[in-house]
């Protein structure tokens, strides 16, 4: 009996498969079945929880130094050892996700908003506007982000806002390009012609008619960009142009400790490096999953 019971069980679950689903329901459904997406999501959620609540459950204050116990190797007291100021590496790695997880998403949101607006404009108007703006964007994309950031930060000084603006604006052209090509396809469709016949204004047509239809590529590009934003923030922090001390940020910790790894103090950098690696790979798995869900 039990065998037939279990055999029957999938039936009600399978029934909704045949029922028509809204496009968004379809996407959510395929996301919930994508191993790539779920693995990535688990990693990202883990770090978000650490960023939000890490300070309440870490064993030590991540900023408290204890010079007598400086540079002790991993032990039962200090799971990941201590750094040159005697700060607990485990606590710092857990709390270290906080700054990068504020700066990188804000930069990505800025890039998405600016890039989408720009992409809609040049895709909708085409012609000379498109020609000029596209060339300028290409010129920008040819310069590595690190170089742009270096120049901007030298000129404007280091702050989280500068980092957000620099990364946001240097990613905006890439999003604009994606949006532009999506808009070019959409603007030939009947519903856009209908809006024009109704004498809707250009702004209305762009943002009310076309925008909802180009959300999928924007969403995919945004998740991909988030991965690169984390890459860029970590790199800038490592170079000393990003998040500033005494934040327990990962890139920053590596830059202040890697000078000593020749002495064998591997625990001061390894765990931070692995933390960045896991977060970047997690976000990229999510991006891969989202990409797959929209293109099936």
């Amino acid at each position, binding site marked *: 009996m039990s065998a037939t019971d279990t055999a029957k069980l999938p039936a009600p679950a399978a029934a909704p498969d045949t029922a028509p689903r809204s496009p968004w329901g379809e996407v959510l459904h395929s996301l919930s079945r994508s191993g790539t997406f779920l693995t990535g999501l688990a990693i990202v959620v883990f770090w978000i929880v650490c960023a939000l609540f890490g300070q309440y459950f870490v064993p030590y204050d991540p900023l408290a130094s204890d010079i007598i116990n400086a540079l002790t190797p991993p032990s039962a007291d200090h799971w990941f050892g201590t750094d040159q100021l005697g700060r607990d590496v485990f606590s710092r790695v857990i709390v270290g996700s906080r700054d990068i997880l504020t700066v990188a998403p804000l930069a990505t949101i800025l890039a998405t908003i600016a890039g989408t607006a720009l992409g809609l404009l040049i895709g909708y108007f085409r012609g000379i506007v498109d020609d000029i703006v596209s060339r300028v964007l290409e010129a920008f994309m040819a310069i590595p982000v690190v170089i742009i950031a270096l*120049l901007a930060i030298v000129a404007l000084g280091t702050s989280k806002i500068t980092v957000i603006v620099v990364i946001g604006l240097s990613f905006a052209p890439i999003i604009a390009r994606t949006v532009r090509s999506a808009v070019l396809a959409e603007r030939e469709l009947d519903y856009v012609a209908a809006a024009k016949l109704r004498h809707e204004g250009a702004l209305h047509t762009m943002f009310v008619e076309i925008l909802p239809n180009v959300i999928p590529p924007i969403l995919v590009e945004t998740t991909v960009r988030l991965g690169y934003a984390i890459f860029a923030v970590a790199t800038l922090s490592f170079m000393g142009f990003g998040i500033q001390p005494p934040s327990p940020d990962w890139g920053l910790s590596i830059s202040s400790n890697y000078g000593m790894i020749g002495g064998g103090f591997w625990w001061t950098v390894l765990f931070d*490096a692995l933390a*960045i690696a896991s977060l970047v790979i997690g976000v990229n798995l999510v991006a891969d999953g989202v990409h797959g869900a929209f293109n099936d």
Partner: protein
Amino acid sequence: MVFLGGQVLPGNVGRSILGPFADQRAVDALNHSLGVDRPLLVQYGSWIWNFLHGDMGTSYVFRAPVAPFVMDALGNSMKLALVAFVLVVPIGILGGVIAALNFNRPLDRIISLGGLSVTVLPEFVTGIILILIFGVWLRWLPIAAAWPKGAGFLTQLYYLILPSLPLFLVLFGYIARMARSGMIEALDSDYTRTAVLKGLPWRTVIWRHVLRNALLPTITVIATQTGYLIGGLVVIETLFRYQGIGSLIFTAARGKDFPMLEAGILTIGIVYAVATLIADFLYSVLNPRIRLGAEQ
């Protein structure tokens, strides 16, 4: 643009060299001797004119002409980039080809997923992990790219292996992915089927028909990665304390040595333009369907 970023934004050059407590007359005198009190357009004109004549200006910090510093650094960086390229181009293409020939089998999955994971990681993260493995634990390779003076070619190569590996890893993913998708497309094409059906041995089909077509897009990718490579060099050279163009720009940016910074970045721009030109040329040589300047 580089000039504007470097020269205009930082404000008063004399003030930033002499510090906030310097006498205003001293600041004015220094500004005059550096020529930065002239109108902007005049400064820009003379800068471009001198640069074209090989005079890149005088470093604010070293009080010496910039050109020898930049040329030395460029030479060092080229060595590093060359080692990375010589390793990655054949291995990346080979990886992509093997993956495509084993399409959807475990070997393909390993190469594709592994390539993707290492590509998305920041260079300093893979760099740190590689330093720990090969430099600190195994002690096979030196952890700083500073060879003894007058070292021979092989010694230099030995010191350059570790710094080139993070660049290798990032580029490997891109190149392998392009080579793989190019191969899969070519294997699926009509001309491959024709070649197989007319009885050519499999080896000949792969070498003469598939590879030639599959590798064209890969060349473009390799060229566009030069831009990335330059951004990567800034990070890698800092991490390995290597006197290349990347660390030159980094040091100049930190020391607010604007002539050095501008010369470094302009040099990089020229290298990038030349690399793109060479790629276009190679592409047209390898692809008989596109001849530069051919009549339609």
